[in-house]
């Protein structure tokens, strides 16, 4: 195992750039995902890049008139403890409070949640519904990728091995609907069986769901129906459309049937003809 401990962002990017192809460096932020499988891992071939000395540069977030910029090391707890962020982007705090439990919330980062590429990530649907841009930086360039185009397949992303997520940007908009619901097997320390974030703002509807596809995904058919003003009279009507957007599976945590049908029920209760 090799552990690199850069003290500046530039040094970190240099390390990433210098890593030989086929032996990429693994950035460590909060480490809460990486350490889960620690003792099952053959560590000889692990090359870790410890980001903990970059807190001054990467942890602070910025809330402005135009939007919120989370840093590459901003934690859930940073968001939970900010009243301003809570007021401007309420779904972020709501989702953050449902990640793991307090220990994870204080260490776990939003960028790590994206970086881990789990289809069950709880932070990703709310950021996606807020139309987030992922800011990737390497020695060569700084580029922005819409979060809903960040994933290209199960555990596959557009991030190149020499890039670091240094920020996540979400625009401030006038929202008429914003709603998040996580279904876990218990109140805390639960990996989502399914989750969904819904936002309607001046740019339209965004419905982002986790644990119902190989990646956290937008439900574009449903969004289109909502944009067309379709009024769902029955939960089955909504589910028929939703089933084109999601492809859940049976696994240790739940069943495909449960995931799709509960997602439809929750959305119907929220958005259907008799919803609230």
């Amino acid at each position, binding site marked *: 195992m090799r552990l690199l401990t850069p003290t500046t962002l530039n040094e970190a990017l240099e390390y990433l750039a210098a890593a030989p192809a086929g032996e990429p460096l693994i950035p460590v932020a909060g480490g809460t995902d990486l350490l889960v499988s620690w*003792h099952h891992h*053959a560590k000889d071939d692990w090359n870790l890049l410890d980001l903990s000395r970059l807190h001054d540069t990467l942890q602070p977030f910025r809330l402005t008139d135009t939007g919120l910029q989370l840093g590459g090391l901003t934690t859930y707890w940073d968001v939970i403890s900010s009243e301003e962020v809570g007021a401007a982007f309420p779904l972020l705090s709501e989702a953050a409070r449902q990640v793991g*439990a307090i220990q994870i919330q204080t260490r776990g980062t939003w960028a790590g949640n994206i970086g881990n590429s789990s289809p069950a990530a709880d932070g990703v649907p709310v950021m996606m519904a807020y139309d987030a841009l992922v800011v990737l930086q390497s020695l060569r360039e700084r580029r922005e990728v819409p979060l809903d185009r960040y994933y290209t397949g199960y555990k596959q992303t557009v991030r190149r091995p020499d890039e670091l997520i240094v920020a996540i940007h979400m625009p401030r908009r006038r929202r008429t609907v914003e709603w998040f619901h996580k*279904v876990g*097997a*218990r*109140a*805390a*320390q*639960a*990996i989502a*069986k399914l989750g969904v974030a819904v936002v309607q703002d001046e740019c339209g509807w965004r419905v982002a769901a986790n644990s119902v596809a190989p990646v956290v995904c937008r439900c574009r058919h449903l969004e289109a129906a909502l944009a067309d003003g379709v009024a769902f009279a029955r939960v089955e009507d909504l589910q028929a459309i939703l089933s084109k957007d999601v492809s859940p599976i049976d696994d*240790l*945590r*739940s*069943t495909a*049937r*449960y995931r799709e*049908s*509960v997602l439809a*029920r*929750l959305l119907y*209760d929220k958005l259907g003809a*008799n919803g*609230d």
Partner: protein
Amino acid sequence: MSIAADIARVDGGAKLAGTARFVDDLAVPGVWHGGAIRSPVARGRIKHIRFDASINWNKFVVVDHRDIPGPNEVALIENDQPALAAGEVRHMHEPIVLLAHPSIGQLRRALRAVQVEIDPLPAVLDPRRPLTPELVQYGPDNVFKLIDIRKGDPREVFARAPHVIEGEYQTGAQEHVYLETQGVLASREDGRMVVQGSVQCPYYVLDALTHFFGEPRDAFRVVQTAVGGGFGGKEEYPSLLAIHAVLLANKAGKPVKIVYDRQEDMAVTTKRHPSWVRHRTAVDRDGRLLAMEIDVLLDGGAYVTLSPVVLSRGTIHAAGPYHCENTHIHGEVRLTNSPPYGAFRGFGAPQTLFAVERHMDVIAERIGMDPLELRRRNLLRKGQTTATGQVFREDTDLVGLLDRALQLSDYDQRRNGHEQLNRTHRYLRRGMGVATFYHGAGFTGAGETHLASEVQVAGLPDGRVEVLTAQTDMGQGTTTILTQIAADRLGLAVGEVLVATPDTSRVPNSGPTVASRTAMVVGKLVAKACDDLIERVGSNTGDGDVARPKGTSLQDAIRAWHVTHDGKHLLGCAKYRKPASIEWDEKTYRGDAYACFSWAAYVAEVEVDLRTCAVRVIDFVALQEVGKVLNQTLARGQIQGGVAQGIGWALYENVLLENGAMKNCQMTNYIIPGSGDLPPIRVYFEEQPTPHGPGGAKGIGELPIDGPAPAVINAVCDALGMSIRSIPLTPERLLDLLGSDAGG
């Protein structure tokens, strides 16, 4: 010192400060780490074991069945379980080869580098499936044990009964999820093999080692380290683990430690027996139980282990705390090719009590009677008999207990509120459910007589006393309770009473720490041994029950004794003797199944979210009659923990089997409820002292796991107007049930 004082737990400080030493905390210089290569299939013949050439195996100690000096048998009720498979494997994860190495990292790599090739054989994965000859692996029919309990003649009654109501109920396996995983350390000291570990029953381990290695008892010493929870999981399993560690330590000539990680622990160790219970009940027009036919089937797993006793306790409790003159309970525990199911808090009773308490609600619904009224009419009254013919002699008023629990839970008012909510709310439904039940304290039937437990209380030269028993404190408070009992009996301060760490080289065999027996049976023996100690120092007033030294203080008397008996041991002794009033016939299963029972009425209130089909328990009242509460805080802790575990079993804990073994063997995928999922658990006690326990105390360790599951599921049925027959009721299952019309 009063026996019922709410003293702080005596082991609490060390655990709080982190100075208590669990087995993995024991740093032994030169220790090697041990691990097992296990079967990848449910059943088959071992063909070949391949050791990957990339590893230098000379640096490892490798043990297989050929290294076994004596009988390859883990001694228990029957000696059918091998410590290492030789030839045939009977379940997934059955140990085949053991490895040890000084580096735990190297060991883990090596464990991945051994491949076992097996010719699969047809496996039994469901005990209900009809057998074909190639599936038979035990006796003529794979039945480990069969029990019949008969009273009156049910067949006669069924023919004439106004109502006959049937139902089948099913419960799943359950994992113990003790905080500390299983582990032992074997090291040779002064020519003797010392096994230290996280064990519930040091003498079981000693017996197993003696049998396996064919050596005398004093060749071994078994010492209990601090134990982080057991719940039955560390009753029989540690015998196998200890054998493995000693095999490796012998061959390596080094101390060997085996500590399972959570995944291995969950995958390979015992679980609660899955059950299928069928009820057929004849009821008259007034709701009186005329006859009960109950069929109990347990999945035993691949070896006998403790299954016959689990079945015994299950069948004895199967008819519930009700009076019925005509009863036939038939129980079977059968082999499957799963890792052996084993001891788990409640020991068969939670399974059968779930069935009967659900069935009471089903009967009530069928005959159009309130389920509470049905219970009131049938609860045992003084002078009536249980299914085994045991006369209910206690003064406990079971109907009163039920009514008080209803009052405490505000039952009527809340149900009225629910009616309104259930009619108007878009997706929430609420309901209330009740269970009335009992649990026998101590070993079943003649068990205590066979155990013939012994206890000593030593008077030390400095005037303090030391209680010597084999009882282990797994967190349930044994040490504190035994301290209180001795301090009370001897008139000493708590600080003047020591409790010995169970160590087979210095404590007598007071039996295993299981079966709700420690406080009642062993506690009573401690009190008797205290009396004996007082007599030995010659200062018994002999006036009445409480013996007190006359004139001088007891401590002075003990010190004085040592002055005149220099270098000698001063021991007060007591041995279990069966009370004359207890009669039990093991052959016919008639008589006093237990010295006494604890009784309870639990009320659960639940809320169901129809969007997610998730059930939340929002209030819980646990009222029980336990003889005497020896320590309020500890007793409440036992009840609250049991209720939490029962709620987990009912709603959350889903052991997913693949090839007969648990596949969701991680804390993240096997869901036990957290504090945020639990309701306020409101605990209340009543006390009707029993002559069989110290200060009148009965056992309480298992009672609280019996009632929550039926109370919770009855409440869900009340909320949704459906009849649910099996647990765990996960949201996924409830969704399926709501989607089907059957409901069950």
